[in-house]
């Protein structure tokens, strides 16, 4: 017996959005979220009943985020100056995003999947490839960098500290 997909979206939608924002930034997060849940909807009937739904969604989100970043890089046009502002979304912590964006990719992913999505390190390792120990190290290094570069509170709402 599998719950209606709508319930999956209701239960995990907010977490997946936080993860997408952390990994691809606020501008591309909507696309990554939408592509993640559309792909998940397609595959949902074949998901084993005892699967860890959150880990499954984060795995899809990881693939979609990589796609989104790759696509953005392909379409990127070099500019001499950065635009003055890129419509800062109200109430979002842009400093934290900037700090996350400055991390090496693997550290950013490890921080997002462990600290925002709450996946244990062996699950994070499954998503990223490599060993759980490497995932733990990447997340620890990422958090250490964030402590240096980011002055605000480091415990996001709803996530394990």
């Amino acid at each position: 017996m599998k719950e209606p997909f709508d319930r999956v979206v209701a239960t995990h939608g907010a977490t997946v959005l936080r993860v997408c924002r952390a990994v691809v930034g606020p501008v591309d997060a909507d696309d990554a979220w939408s592509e993640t849940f559309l792909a998940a909807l397609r595959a949902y009937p074949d998901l084993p009943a005892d699967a860890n739904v959150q880990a499954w969604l984060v795995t899809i989100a990881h693939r979609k985020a990589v796609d989104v970043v790759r696509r953005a890089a392909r379409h990127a046009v070099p500019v001499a100056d950065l635009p003055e502002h890129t419509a800062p979304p109200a109430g979002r912590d842009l400093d934290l995003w900037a700090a996350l964006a400055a991390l090496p990719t693997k550290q950013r992913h490890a921080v997002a999947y462990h600290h925002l999505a709450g996946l244990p390190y062996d699950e994070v390792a499954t998503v990223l490839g490599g060993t759980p120990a490497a995932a733990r190290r990447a997340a620890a290094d990422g958090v250490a960098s964030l402590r240096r570069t980011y002055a605000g509170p480091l415990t996001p709402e709803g996530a394990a500290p």
Partner: protein
Amino acid sequence: MTTTDDDLTRLRTRLAAAALADGTLDVAYRTVDSPVGPLLLARTPAGLVRVAFAVQDHDAVLQSLADAVSPRVLQAAAPFDDVVRELDEYFAGRRRTFDVPLDLRLLRGFRRTVVSHLPEIPYGATASYAEVAASSGSPRAVRAVGTACALNPLPLVLPCHRVVRSDGSPGRYAGGDDAKLTLLALETAVGAAA
């Protein structure tokens, strides 16, 4: 980082539209208010597959649709424009029959026979369980007719509320006894005014 409910509402609407366009939305649903309480409407690409009253527990109904039809279930308003319009017209006394496409896949055997005969009972009229049993070709299956009506997946649209006891008393209704009285009173008043 603040994740706002507004963002998620917008994203879920966008997801439902994309899933419809993609052909992967097997069961769309929405709820609408009505004079007999909130109604859950569910639709497959073939047509309207389920109408349920609040007393039937909408969460349980969605779970049963996930089990019986497909777990690809999402809330989506757009596919229901015609159904909602016809229901509005019905409750306003301006519509006597429904002509939205129906998906009868939840019905098998005798239950399907019984429920398919229900639209033959005219608007504003009633038929007894025994009469419906006879018109379904099994005059002795009166209790089975009662069960078929109680389990009708498309109440209102397939009018099981017009099936009453032989003594003329309304009998039970999946939407609650009050809902049955409301519907019969509506149809009697509109029928008499015509």
